[in-house]
């Protein structure tokens, strides 16, 4: 598929674009802080700053909503960055962070820890380790005969993903009924658990910094290995870096929020449309856009049927599917 961004106006004004994204990020956090089963008036925000807010609102915002919004922002930014990198690695604008089966390995490990009745810390840890195990499996299988091609990598990832899928189904079948609900939430992507955000946030900062350092090389990789090589880019080394970087970012997101779908596919698409394919702009813009939109989606997920909460993955898919189909139509 050939992907043609045709909105070039924002591309000419990156400063305005980033200013708008910062405003969007700020808006998403304010929206998340004020909205929920209990709505907080806007005025309370200024009371919070002057330390005159009621303890109830204070606790609601600082103990519940802000940490959750922060987690959503981190997960959204991680998935979007991972999506951009995976699209470069596979030189395909339809690639997403889960295409190589990282989420499957992670989900299986998370479900097994739920099955064993382990706590939130172990759940996060095992999800992360499951993702890493999956990454190394894909890498070593795809590399087995020296060098790798995109098709071998993709095929290895897809085959492993279907293997993980079968094992996940098996775990769901044998799991006791009272644990199934939590497992399904995790599989669809869920931010309602209070999980430690800091490790994932550190991964986000390091991943963003690392990918920005190689961002011009990413632009050149889009032209193919031979062109990259003739311009002095060691494409084999760079591909390995991109593979591990995007996998690590995905592992950070999954261990924080489960398998949230569509963010890693649609956000890079959307931002490519708006600002083009220069990764020096695309990477930070995708992180900000993905982060903000996941904060907004998660706030809606816990509000629409309040007090009942929806898994945020359901909402991102419900928004993502029509948006993606629309972008696909526009792309020709």
């Amino acid at each position, binding site marked *: *598929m050939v*992907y043609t961004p045709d909105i*070039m106006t924002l591309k000419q004004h990156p400063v305005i674009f980033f200013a708008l994204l910062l405003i969007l990020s700020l808006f998403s956090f304010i929206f998340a802080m004020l909205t929920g089963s209990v709505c907080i008036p806007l005025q309370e925000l200024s009371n919070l700053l002057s330390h005159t807010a009621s303890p109830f609102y204070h606790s609601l915002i600082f103990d519940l909503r802000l940490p959750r919004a922060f987690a959503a922002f981190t997960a959204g930014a991680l998935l979007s960055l991972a999506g951009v990198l995976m699209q470069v690695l596979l030189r395909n604008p339809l690639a997403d962070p889960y295409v190589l089966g990282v989420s499957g390995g992670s989900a299986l490990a998370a479900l097994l820890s739920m099955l064993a009745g382990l706590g939130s810390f172990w759940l996060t840890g095992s999800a992360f380790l499951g993702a890493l195990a999956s990454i190394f499996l894909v890498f070593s299988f795809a590399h087995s005969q020296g060098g790798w091609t995109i098709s071998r990598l993709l095929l290895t990832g897809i085959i492993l993903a279907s293997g993980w899928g079968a094992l996940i189904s098996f775990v769901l079948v044998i799991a006791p009924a009272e644990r199934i609900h939590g497992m399904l939430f995790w599989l669809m992507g869920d931010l309602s658990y209070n999980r430690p955000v800091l490790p994932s946030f550190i991964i986000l900062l390091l991943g963003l910094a690392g990918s920005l350092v*190689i961002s011009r090389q990413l*632009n050149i990789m889009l032209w193919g290995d031979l062109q990259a090589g*003739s311009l002095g*880019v060691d494409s084999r080394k760079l591909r390995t870096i991109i593979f591990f970087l995007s996998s690590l970012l995905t592992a950070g997101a999954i261990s924080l929020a489960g398998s949230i779908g569509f963010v890693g596919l649609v956000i890079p698409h959307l931002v490519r449309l708006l600002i083009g394919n220069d990764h020096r702009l695309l990477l930070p813009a995708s992180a900000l856009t993905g982060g903000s939109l996941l904060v907004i989606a998660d706030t809606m997920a816990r509000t629409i049927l309040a007090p009942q909460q929806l898994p945020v993955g359901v909402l991102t898919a419900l928004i993502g599917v029509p948006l993606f189909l629309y972008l696909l139509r526009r792309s020709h």
Partner: protein
Amino acid sequence: MALALESLTVSVGGKSVCRQLSMSFKPGEFWGIMGINGVGKSTLLQCLMGLRKADSGKVLLDNTPLLTYKPIERARKMGLMLQEYEYNFPCSVMEAVLIGRHPFVHSLQWENNKDKNLARQALQKVALDSFSERSINTLSGGEKRRLNLATLLTQNPEYYLLDEPVNHLDIKAQLDVLTLLQHKFKTRYCGIMVIHDPNLAWRYCDHILLLDNGECISGEAKSILNTENLSRLYQCPVQTLKNQEHTIFIPHKNDLHLTTND
């Protein structure tokens, strides 16, 4: 100062491209590499660029083994225009041309005005200067080919490796591009070009390398390009038409009898 081959043996898919080839390409020379489809012309160019390993022998860039250069150092001295490019993620024409500056710009820096001026000049040379803000997906095949050349001109290496640079170009654009390159390679630059048309090779290249299933013939263009060599190379009778200025090679099949009206 030269790009030298020392007993270079290259094969692809079990088929020999060259055996024990020793020769050198020097600044001021414009080489044409010719041979039938699949004989390994592009493979040889990739070997010369250090993107593919030879079976044996060495490529020396300015007396130093090519493979000891860091990729980025090599890209400052040598550039390759490929036969085909991938365009899955289009950008503007200017962005595409500016990637030629990659070997010269630090990884944490952006291209400066000098780089942009070089890109503009390159676009001007290939008559694409009015296209700089257009998406590359809106370009025709011939325009894309000129864009690829502009990227290489922006890189501006000492050794230009060109894989069929006039593909998709109309006849005037072919002459324009080859005149531009010929002019460039009269100075301190060296051109090594894969080309199929013996008439263009005769007119623009000063040296020729013929690849014939592992056997290589090289030398000055005017002595190498003759009916005997070309007929053997392409396994097809080639005749010549000559006047005071030009020699024109006309290939024809054995069973075809050309008349003046054909």
